């Protein structure tokens, strides 16, 4: 898969096209994830001088502006928050994601407890992650109400799934504010609302592929994954709860 045509991109600006109900991984992408250990040495990296988010492991031209990519000296910072890589083949875009992309950043839950995002919320679990902010009024209430229904249905089906709502506006969304928001939608145990320092949350959103410049543009996407098998997929968060339930159940039962 990682041949000539592969361009490694930040997902920024790329997600909307990739969203689809029940959108799932390419099998080959999945196989590749299994082979990738969590911490691996960074090979040579080339980046566009104008678009630093555009990087590649080979020489080539930037798909945005056509400039030749330049070799980047990998700093400690760059390896600490590796850009999420999207494999793009000639046929178009697809979704490749793995647990190894999820940084173990320091975050806070709605009760003010400090958590390690990967270790405490993702590791060895089936998870569904949506993205909200408490002052968002158009899509966040339906997103959250839908998540609440999904949580009830998962309980009925005795499926143990960790629900996560990450705030895309951490400077406003304090743990107290998230707790109030969670209570308004009657969020039950097993549903964690996540906020943190602006920089930490920003790199988390980058890594999860949902970073946007304007928070009102944040996508109603739900990231669904099974950390045990390394299966990840995305779905449209405003789909009916039954659709979401189906996608999450598939992830939970993935072998």
């Amino acid at each position, binding site marked *: 898969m990682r041949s000539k045509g592969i361009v490694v991109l930040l997902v920024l600006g790329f997600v909307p096209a990739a969203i689809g109900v029940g959108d799932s991984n390419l099998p080959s992408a999945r196989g590749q994830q299994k082979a990738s250990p969590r911490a691996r040495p960074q090979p040579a990296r080339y980046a566009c001088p104008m678009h630093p988010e555009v990087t590649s492991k080979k020489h080539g031209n930037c798909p945005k502006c056509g400039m030749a990519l330049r070799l980047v000296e990998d700093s400690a910072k760059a390896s600490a928050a590796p850009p999420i890589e999207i494999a793009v083949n000639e046929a178009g875009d697809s979704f490749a994601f793995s647990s190894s992309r999820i940084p173990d950043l320091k975050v806070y839950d709605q009760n003010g407890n400090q958590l390690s995002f990967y270790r405490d919320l993702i590791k060895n679990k089936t998870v569904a992650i949506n993205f909200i902010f408490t002052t968002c009024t158009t899509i966040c209430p339906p997103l959250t109400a839908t998540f609440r229904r999904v949580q009830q249905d998962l309980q009925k089906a005795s499926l143990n799934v960790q629900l996560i709502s990450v705030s895309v506006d951490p400077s406003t969304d304090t743990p*107290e504010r998230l707790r109030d928001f969670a209570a308004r939608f009657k969020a039950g145990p097993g549903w964690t609302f996540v906020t943190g320092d602006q920089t930490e949350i920003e790199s988390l959103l980058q890594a999860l592929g949902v970073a946007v410049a304007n928070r009102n543009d944040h996508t109603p996407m739900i990231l669904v994954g099974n950390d045990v098998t390394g299966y990840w997929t995305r779905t449209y968060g*405003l789909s009916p709860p039954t659709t979401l339930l189906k996608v999450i159940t598939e992830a939970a039962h993935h072998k």
Partner: protein
Amino acid sequence: MGPAFSAGLGRSGLTLAPGQSSPASRERRGKQIYVQGTSASGKEIFAYLGESSLEVPGSTMPCANCHGLDGLGKPEGGVNPTNLTWEALTKPYGVTHASGRRHPPYTERGLELAITRGTDPAGNTLLNVMPRYSMSNEDLADLVAYLRLLGKDRDPGISENKLVIGAICPTKGSLAEMGQAVKAVTTAYFEELNSQGGIYNRQVEMKFIDTGDTPAATRVKLERFIKEEQVFALTAAFIAGAEKEIVPLLGQQEVPLIGPLTLYPQIDLPLNRQVFYLLSGVDGQARAMIHFAVLKPELRTQHFAVVLPQSEVNLEVLGAIADQLRKDGLSAAKAFDYAAGHFDAAEIIGRLRQSSPDVVVFLGAGEDARTFLAEADKSRWYPTVFLAGGSGGREIFDAPIGFNGKLFFSFPTAPADQSAAGLKEFHALAEKYKLPARHLAAQISALSAAKILGEGLKRVGKDLSREKLIQVLEGLYEYPTGLTPAITYGPNRRIGALGAYIVNVDLKEKQFVPASGWINLN
């Protein structure tokens, strides 16, 4: 189609049955449904998402959430809510949406179907993010009546060339003189503003009411005042002692209040968005004291004790102290409470000394504080004492000399915050409008509140609404009133100058000595 969606069925037209109320109150009720998702009748309103039976209370997803108070729609995450202004909905040649969806103009009946069944006049199904609502036929008619008005109605108190602002100022009792001073300076500020042309050609009209004999009576008076006088916003209101009555009322009535005079701001979540405080109250000042004590190694503070009269507001202060101790990495403080008006200093000191605290935070009245210090002096016990919230005047200089250097006060503002320009403006007003020479601190507070309100109104512009005022004030950053520390508000922040100064009491020279710079709590 479940029974939940049946509200729109079987209705014909919008004729008023005998005994039904007038259109004006019908539209007012409709606005409540549009903005809050609740019915004035108390009947339940539910929202249903998509084709599913996902039912939530209407208040979770009122129309205004997505379509906006102005009806123009608030696009988010690829969802573009329809423009609901009547002109847009009823274009004679029909409506074509950005998505390509087309339909003939809406009628009232068509809107009822859109709200209850999620279909447009062409029979297209609306996006599943648009909930289907169930509500009584009366509520539905009220809502549709309001939609005719949406985007054209103004908040109370606004007309083309006038804006009504209110204030609560006592005219009787011990606070009467202070109330009159506040009234005078507020009137002077807005008269001066009016003489310069007003705000976007609107002359500000000030209306005042007196406080009631009890907090409950003040609430009743204020509720009537808001309704009868149609005030747009309030400034510099005396709400001290009646915080629990007044603040929730302003939330319900959605009346902004800038700079209330109180030591006990109500800033717990869920935040009351309407009320903007100027300075830290006792809770914020106590936080600043704790933070100060922790930062000062020579105080060797590990063990805090808090002495407080029993009251609801003091429990909030105690909560703030516990929270600040946690933030500063210290263990919780021991609390010693007493019934207000029944302070037994010897008994409290006996209990206090058993836990041997390094620092005592004293929240009681100034009189109780003096009794406390005298009693401690008898047993030659001189802990560091923090007196929060201005609990004493110059009498504190008569405290036992053993406490020299051990007493600390908090002040939410200091004379150094007053700039030359700020003082010049105040003195010019005082001279021109013959302001009283007394209660200068209250006058400066009231003037600062009026300046913040004036600034907010100017920043909103001609197209004024309460919601826009709140949003603009939430964006205020380091606004210099010239009379207080710079004022900053935010979506979570309702204290303009969040912090305090700590001063030490020099009992020999009988003066306050600054012990800290501005302690910023943000």
